[in-house]
């Protein structure tokens, strides 16, 4: 039996890009379209190899650029195909026009974002600025902590995207460098069990290029003519409903994944050593492991620190975030990107918004680190923890702490 489609689970050693590609093999998409870009390139090279080897039975389209990649997938999706691609930074920027159209078309694609800092200055390294730059485009966004979570989450993303109450495209984000090229041992789930988990592809029951049921796809909508405004508002509200549904649907999908495969990931936010904590650090993506190690080290020193990891970022899981923050007296938010509007990180901005809509009032410390491939180590997290403890005592920094400013 080929190792890519095992009939029982088995341990392999690979990086996050290969893990995503192997997850795609397990999900059996019909059409994959690709254009390579650092740090995503090895992911699509793996997919091309799997198609060439016959273990991935998808139609592979090597398009001339990312705009065409996503346009081709839109057509395929409208024709009923399960679809996948992956991109990064400048590739995502070139994809932007079809990218913003996809959620409104309610096309359930899965697209990995192998996150990379945005130009300029010229940079080929990791950072979440690319994904964060498209956080208001209507795609679901999920961030992964380690290679195993990349593999499991890419599979789960297909089920989320295709759920009838959601029907939205999903970005599964994994950090450039630390996850794209970071190698670790992971468990490959049995292909047959994944087939049972995902079931039949349910892609285009609502909108289709189908001669048997002709329809106008994406006709001119809105304007000031009779019913135009109401029609447009109806579409937008429907999109918002799909986003809101994603929270519960993704939680159910994680529960089922845990039952079938024994790995119980937190679907929205993970609380780590939080129940008796005085303060918390809030993390997103591959920095989380070092953050947990830093929390353990602080606990060994007798400091009551916990960690809140954000997995689902769009829609923002505000209920879960408020429930977690209500347990502590202060929180230090670590962003791997910047919000140019607010002199803080985008995650920090979201947490502030969630707090304001709740009765919870605690001080927040904004920290920005890991830009352009920079490392966020246990020592950096120790500084976050110290600053957060000071904030709990009333000493709140007015502007962000740039963790790598002197590295």
């Amino acid at each position, binding site marked *: 039996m080929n190792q890519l489609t095992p009939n029982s689970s088995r341990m392999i*050693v690979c990086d996050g890009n290969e893990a995503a590609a192997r997850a795609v093999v397990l999900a059996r998409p019909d059409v994959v379209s690709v254009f390579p870009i650092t740090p995503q390139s090895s992911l699509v090279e793996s997919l091309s190899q799997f198609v060439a080897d016959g273990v991935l039975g998808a139609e592979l389209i090597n398009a001339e650029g990312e705009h065409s990649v996503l346009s081709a997938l839109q057509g395929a999706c409208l024709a009923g195909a399960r679809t996948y691609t992956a991109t990064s930074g400048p590739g995502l920027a070139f994809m932007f026009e079809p990218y913003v159209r996809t959620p409104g078309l309610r096309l359930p694609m899965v697209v990995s974002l192998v996150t990379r800092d945005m130009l300029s200055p010229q940079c080929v390294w990791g950072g979440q600025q690319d994904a964060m730059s498209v956080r208001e485009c209507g795609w679901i966004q999920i961030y992964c902590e*380690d290679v195993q979570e990349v593999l499991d989450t890419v599979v789960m993303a297909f089920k989320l995207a295709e759920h009838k109450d959601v029907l939205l495209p999903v970005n599964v984000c994994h950090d450039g460098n630390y996850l794209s090229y970071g*190698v*670790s041992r992971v468990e490959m789930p049995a292909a047959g069990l994944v087939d049972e988990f995902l079931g039949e592809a349910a892609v285009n029951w609502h909108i289709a290029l189908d001669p048997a049921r002709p329809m106008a796809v994406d006709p001119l909508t809105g304007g000031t003519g009779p019913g135009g405004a109401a029609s447009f508002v109806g579409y937008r509200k429907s999109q918002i409903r799909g986003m809101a549904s994603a929270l519960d649907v993704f939680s159910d999908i994680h529960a089922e994944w845990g039952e079938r495969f024994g790995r119980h990931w937190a679907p929205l936010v993970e609380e780590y050593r939080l129940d008796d904590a005085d303060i918390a650090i809030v993390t997103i993506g*591959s*920095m*989380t492991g*070092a953050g947990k190690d830093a929390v353990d080290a602080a606990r060994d020193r007798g400091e009551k620190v916990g960690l809140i990891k954000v997995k689902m970022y769009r829609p923002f899981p505000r209920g879960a975030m408020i429930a977690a923050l209500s347990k502590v007296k202060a929180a230090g938010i670590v962003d791997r990107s910047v919000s140019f509007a607010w002199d803080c990180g985008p995650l920090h901005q979201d947490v502030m918004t969630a707090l304001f809509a709740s009765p919870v009032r605690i001080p927040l410390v904004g920290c920005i680190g890991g830009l352009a491939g920079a490392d966020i180590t*246990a020592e950096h997290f120790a500084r976050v923890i110290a600053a957060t403890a000071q904030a709990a005592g009333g000493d709140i920094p007015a502007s962000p702490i740039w963790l790598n400013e002197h590295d």
Partner: protein
Amino acid sequence: MTNEIRLHGRGGQGTVMAAGILAQALAEEGKWAIAIPTFGFERRGAPVSAFLRVDDKPIRSLTNIYHPDVIVCIDQTLGRAVNIFAGMAPGATLVLASRKRPDELGLPPTARRLGLVDAVSIAMELFRRPITNSVMLGALARTTGMVSLEGLARAMEESHFRDAGLAQNLEAIRRGYDETEVLDLKESCHAYA
């Protein structure tokens, strides 16, 4: 107990691949390992390094390594461009590809063990080009004992090679293992300071 290894080489020599094969071999032997490479634009000849962390339990920190317990350098000229000993933990083990004598290598005085092999000559004989990664994995196994030749061989069988076949690479790790000279620097370290 966590063991931290840093591998140095140049783009095209297979440094990153060596770290991946080592992680695979360690996993085959029941260990937990993570390997993270670091490089800029992908081009041949540019300095490349890879970090590997190994433990008996799962590893969460996906970070670089700043104070390696083991330093492996698979290129004999890289020391001119990069300080391959930067941040070395006291008492560290060094595994170096070189034709030079130990006292010509400018070794840091706190290093305790040295594995030395003329990896380029072996690679030229086996591959007709200076691709030294497999030779140096054999040298690492011989010098540290942290991984077995059998484990490396099993990991090699799982790998896909671009520049040579599996049999040649298995021969390369065996010759690297056999032809590495291992020196205890404890007594004589001041002579190399």
